[in-house]
């Protein structure tokens, strides 16, 4: 059942949210002004915040690995695994993802330098920055350009033509969730284009070597060296590290998929987004993203990607500022009549699962 583009469009064609070009310009100017205001205000508070998070991450990491060595006491295994999971989640989300967006480049701190930072996951920062910061953030939810739509594995949009392969949509999604770090690492290989013959393996040789080096390093650390150091505790340490990696995978998959795929989030076509003005670009980012509601701890653990809308408007503003910014963005959206998609995790993720299930069928 082919659908026409107009059914899903936001920015330009949908009469329901139609804003005049003047209104969009005004909206864009307001957001630009908001952005400048926050950038001017960046200072000690932001540096202290991220250093506190860094300290917490290291604390959880050292404590987690330490407790796993004491796994002969069963509660130590559980506490160690939880602690290490928290460390990996903080490292990947509130620290890694955000630092690599350049949110802290202004500090001039080499530890927070987006060009140098490497994170505790299989995907090499270099490749990830290209597929995420550039392709996904610039071409957010443009079917055919934003490869985060389905990661080349899933059918996440009616615009992707159906194929019997997609009967396994839910299964693939579960696998992707469990081994998300490898899914993200492979993202840059564009396997789907290799399968279709568009590109060859040789074209991606450099990316592959990069990925392989990083995957190997991560695996040696978690699955060989730390278990070996633990001597008789080796199996317990192996299991703890494995569980922590999976826990991180599942959590980050959930948060990330809730950012763009819950019910009501819009998709766009390439034609619609040609020659966008700044106002239109902001507008598309809002229609193409969804937020999650929750407490302060929840926002930290999601790397503040729970404020996906604000993150897409201002990807290089330190993420812990999004909660404050959201108040103003919401108010502006209400004034301009722009929908603002937000809800609790269970509701948003539920609707993502429903969508994955529905799209497994034609």
């Amino acid at each position, binding site marked *: 059942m082919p659908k026409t583009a107009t059914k899903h469009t936001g920015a330009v064609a949908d009469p329901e949210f139609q804003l005049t070009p003047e209104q969009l310009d005004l909206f864009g100017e307001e957001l630009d002004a908001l952005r400048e205001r926050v950038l001017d205000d960046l200072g000690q*508070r932001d540096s202290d915040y991220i250093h506190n998070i860094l*300290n917490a991450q290291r604390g959880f990491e050292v404590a987690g690995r330490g407790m796993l060595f004491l796994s002969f006491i069963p509660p130590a295994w559980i506490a160690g695994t939880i602690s290490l999971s928290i460390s990996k989640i903080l490292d990947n989300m509130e620290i890694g993802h955000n630092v690599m967006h350049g949110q802290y480049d202004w500090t001039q701190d080499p530890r927070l330098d987006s060009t140098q930072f490497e994170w505790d996951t299989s995907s090499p920062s270099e490749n990830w920055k*290209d597929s995420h910061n550039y392709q996904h953030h*610039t071409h957010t939810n443009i079917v055919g350009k934003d490869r985060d739509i389905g990661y080349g594995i899933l059918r996440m949009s009616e615009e992707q033509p159906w194929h019997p392969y997609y009967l396994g949509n839910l299964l693939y999604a579960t696998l992707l969730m469990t081994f998300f770090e490898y899914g993200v690492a492979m993202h840059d290989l564009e396997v789907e284009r290799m399968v279709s013959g568009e590109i060859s393996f040789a074209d991606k040789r450099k990316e592959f070597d990069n990925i392989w080096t*990083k995957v190997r390093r991560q695996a040696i650390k978690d699955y060989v060296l730390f278990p070996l150091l633990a001597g008789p505790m080796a199996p317990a340490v192996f299991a703890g590290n494995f569980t922590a990696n999976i826990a991180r995978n599942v959590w980050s998959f959930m948060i990330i998929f809730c950012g763009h795929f819950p019910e009501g989030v819009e998709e766009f076509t390439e034609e619609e987004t040609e020659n966008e003005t700044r106002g239109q670009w902001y507008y598309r980012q809002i229609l193409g993203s969804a937020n999650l509601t929750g407490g302060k701890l929840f926002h930290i653990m999601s790397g503040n990607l729970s404020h996906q809308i604000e993150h897409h408007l201002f990807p290089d503003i330190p993420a812990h500022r999004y909660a404050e910014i959201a108040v103003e963005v919401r108010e502006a959206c209400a004034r301009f009549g722009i929908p603002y998609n937000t809800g609790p995790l269970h509701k948003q993720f539920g609707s993502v699962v429903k969508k994955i299930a529905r799209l497994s069928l034609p």
Partner: protein
Amino acid sequence: MGTGIMALDSLLNSPRKLTRGLLDSHLVESLLTPNPVERYVGMIDPVWSRRDVRAKVVAVERQTPRSVTLTLEPNSNWNGFEPGQHVGVTVEIDGRLTTRFYSPAGAAAGKGLELTITRHPGGKVSEHLADIAAPGMVVGLSPAEGEFTLPSTRPDHLLLISGGSGITPVMSMLRTLCAEGHDRPVTFLHFARTPQDAIYARELQALGEAHANLNVVTVFTREGTKPQHLTRATLKSICPDYLAAETYVCGPNALVDAAEKLWKRDRNADRLHTEPFTLPEPTVVAADATGSVTFKRSGIAVENDGQSLLLQAEQGNLSPRHGCRMGICHTCVCRVESGTVRHVRTGEVKTLNNELVQICVNAPVGDIEIDL
């Protein structure tokens, strides 16, 4: 075998070396991947680093109302300095790491590193240090550099001239010479605004009394009926045979300029060595395109045409990494070694000194050197 045991022995006898060897090992690197060792050691010892030079402030003295003298204890990566050289000092101010250069004032062989920093109105680092420096504070350091140094065969006759906070490099020379037991004539001429501003006054007096070959003169530029500056008459009265002396001058531009003119007129410029200190202020505010863009790594320079750095690099046939070309993705960030840029959208003008910048949305204003 024997040497192996000896090496092991010396390692065990030196816990520092052992720790160092351990922290440098491949095993530790593989265990901590992808993070550098510093990220963990820093929790216990913020001064330790595998490669970076860092130092702890161990003593703070405020000699004059406008200055602060710090004694630093650098970590083992510090390679020392030659008297007259300068080092970059990095501190965090409002969340940003900011670096300024200062000349150590102590003798080269001395223990610790002594810096005297004079407060410049609006000078971020100097005000920050003058206000809050306290023992225990950790600062970043860069290796010492600079050509303003004494030859290793010490000259037979030396004239050291300084103005204001420019005293530090020549003070270091003087202290080094005294420590070496140098016994040939040295004239030390210092210009300070008022007696309250005279840094190292007491020590200079004591040195002058203790060393017969040393002649210390301090001139107060704001005392008396008319301001005192460097003239041929002053020089002649203080150091009659100054033409024969190897001369080192450090101070404000006016002092350095005056010295250069005098020595040039005497056709004696070879004997003169100068180190002006320019205040690190944004030099260009005009938004028009002048100067040239130097791409350091590729060894290419183009005339600045006012477009974004990215476009200018591409027109110079370079292909810098980039993504969105609209300031969102940070793929294009590059290090600017020195220069001023204007943000193409907001018009914000910033002077950069070894800092990262998004080249797709920043255009150079005047000369710029970029690591591309």
